[in-house]
């Protein structure tokens, strides 16, 4: 049995497959019916300083092979997160990584410091800093498309915790490698990409966008090639691990990411289609590795023939 265990900030995850933030809640929604021990990491719905009600409705619309959402980081806020969600994480059979969102750099650090202080037993494996949400006015993409702000945010959060720190990148930028380098310079242990791609659907009969916010974030199979390309470029620009996501529906999709340079992957929208998918994929990736004679994550990277 080979063990494909990503190492991030000196800590190991059980396998390469995670469930992406915002698509698996806090795990409790699935815990009773699924065996979560086969999942490498569960990334929570974003947690923010204060509770957020979320955006106006409808918040979801299907597109060709995609899902456009404008949830607006609806969540219970850091205090209720600690009281209501954290105790459940301690008994979760997989690593739980808190996805953190905020309006400005100092606030990210404050939320992370608060979570760290209120989690003495280490129920949280690490943090994923969401500087890439397309559906909020402050923080989010606005911050995540500015390299120096990303670096400053990462540095501030870095001083707030010793746990593994992942910075989640947006594809809605001119050059994602520049932002990835900024996160690395700020002290990130890994970067994850991609968050959703800005998109719009117009209801021509009503002559207005379907989502009241106008635009939303596109996920699902439609964005798979965008994510793979991002991981390919980012993994060649930084020396920290890259966690790949965007449009993964099948094991082959996941292997594309691993070959492109990802050290781990996340499954998002596919959980809505089949909540068992992450566990199954983890097993299938191991089987693929055995068949391909790959015994490490780096082995996947070197499977990719040089192009051109």
């Amino acid at each position, binding site marked *: 049995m080979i063990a494909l265990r990503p190492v991030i900030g000196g800590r190991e995850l059980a396998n390469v497959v995670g469930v992406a933030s*915002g*698509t*698996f*809640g*806090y795990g409790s*929604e*699935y815990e*009773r*019916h699924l065996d979560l021990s086969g999942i490498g990491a569960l990334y929570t*719905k974003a947690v923010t300083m204060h509770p957020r*009600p*979320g955006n*106006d*409705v*409808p*918040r*979801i*619309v*299907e597109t*060709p*092979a*995609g*899902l456009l*959402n404008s*949830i607006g980081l*609806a*969540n219970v806020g850091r205090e209720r997160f600690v009281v209501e969600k954290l105790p459940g994480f301690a008994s979760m059979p997989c690593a739980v990584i808190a996805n953190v969102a905020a309006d400005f750099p100092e606030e990210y650090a404050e939320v992370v410091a608060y979570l760290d202080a209120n989690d003495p037993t280490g129920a949280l494996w690490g943090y994923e800093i969401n500087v890439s949400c397309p559906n909020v006015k402050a923080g989010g993409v606005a911050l995540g498309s500015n390299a120096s702000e990303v670096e400053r945010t990462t540095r501030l959060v870095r001083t707030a915790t010793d746990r593994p720190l992942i910075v989640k990148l947006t594809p809605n930028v001119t050059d994602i490698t520049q932002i990835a380098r900024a996160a690395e310079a700020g002290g990130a242990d890994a970067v994850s990409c991609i968050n959703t791609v800005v998109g719009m659907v117009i209801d021509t009969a009503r002559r207005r966008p379907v989502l009241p916010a106008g635009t939303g974030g596109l996920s*699902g*199979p*439609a964005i798979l090639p965008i994510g793979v390309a991002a991981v390919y470029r980012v993994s060649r620009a930084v020396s920290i691990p890259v966690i790949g996501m965007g449009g993964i*529906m099948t094991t082959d999709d996941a292997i594309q990411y691993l070959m492109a340079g990802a050290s781990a992957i996340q499954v998002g*929208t596919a*959980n*809505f*289609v*089949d*909540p*068992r998918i992450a566990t199954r994929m983890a097993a299938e990736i191991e089987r693929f590795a055995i068949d391909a004679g790959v015994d490490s994550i780096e082995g996947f990277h070197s499977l990719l023939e040089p192009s051109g």
Partner: protein
Amino acid sequence: MPLFTARVLANQEVAHDYYQLDFSWISDAPRPVPGQFLTVRVGSSGVPLLRRPFAFSDAAGERASMIYWRRGDATRAIAGYQPGDAIDVMGPLGVAFPEPTDGAVPVLIAGGVGVGPILFLANALAARAPYPILLIGARSAQGLPRVRVDGRVQLRTATDDGSAGYAGTVIDLLDRTLDITAGDVELYLCGPNPMLRAGHDLAARHGIPAWVSMEQTMGCAVGACMGCAIHLTGVERYARVCTEGPVFRSTDVDWERL
């Protein structure tokens, strides 16, 4: 949230563009009750991508049913299912219609895709007095479903064009029904939002409680994604249709902001 592969038992047209799908239900999954729904995965490619939610229209033993409107990609595909075909189902999901208060006459109102859950409720409530009154509305006679209704249910129909039953909307019919029904009444509605809203207004005017089953586009259907929110009137502002609903007290729904 049991997730399993069911078998299609029957798939028959019950009205113009409306079908009833009967499928196997595994015995160790919870028994669906009226108001609850399931989601169906259609196809294995990315189009259509999301599972589709449908209310149960019946469930007994190792068998369950839904009534659906053939309207888009997913429901067109479902309309093509043959007995014996496998379907990927998840459920039962959501909360049930609450029992009527003792002695109150349940008046059930269905339009469009609301027929399934209301029919399920009507047949369940037929087990004891006071027996339910069931009002079904459609645009014309061919839109009225040919379905099994327990003999103790008082069924009345309405068509917009007057081709069958009462000539007018099902809400007009409800208005008349309320005028001639003595004693306490409790309303249960499922159908298009304008119908639900008119039902709510009528209930408010008569000072009677009303339960509505709401729809919203769903992602996860288990409360995890916050995608299926609707506006509420209370301090919480939003509720998830998939887990806090789909059944709501009509006074809790913010009808101005659907």
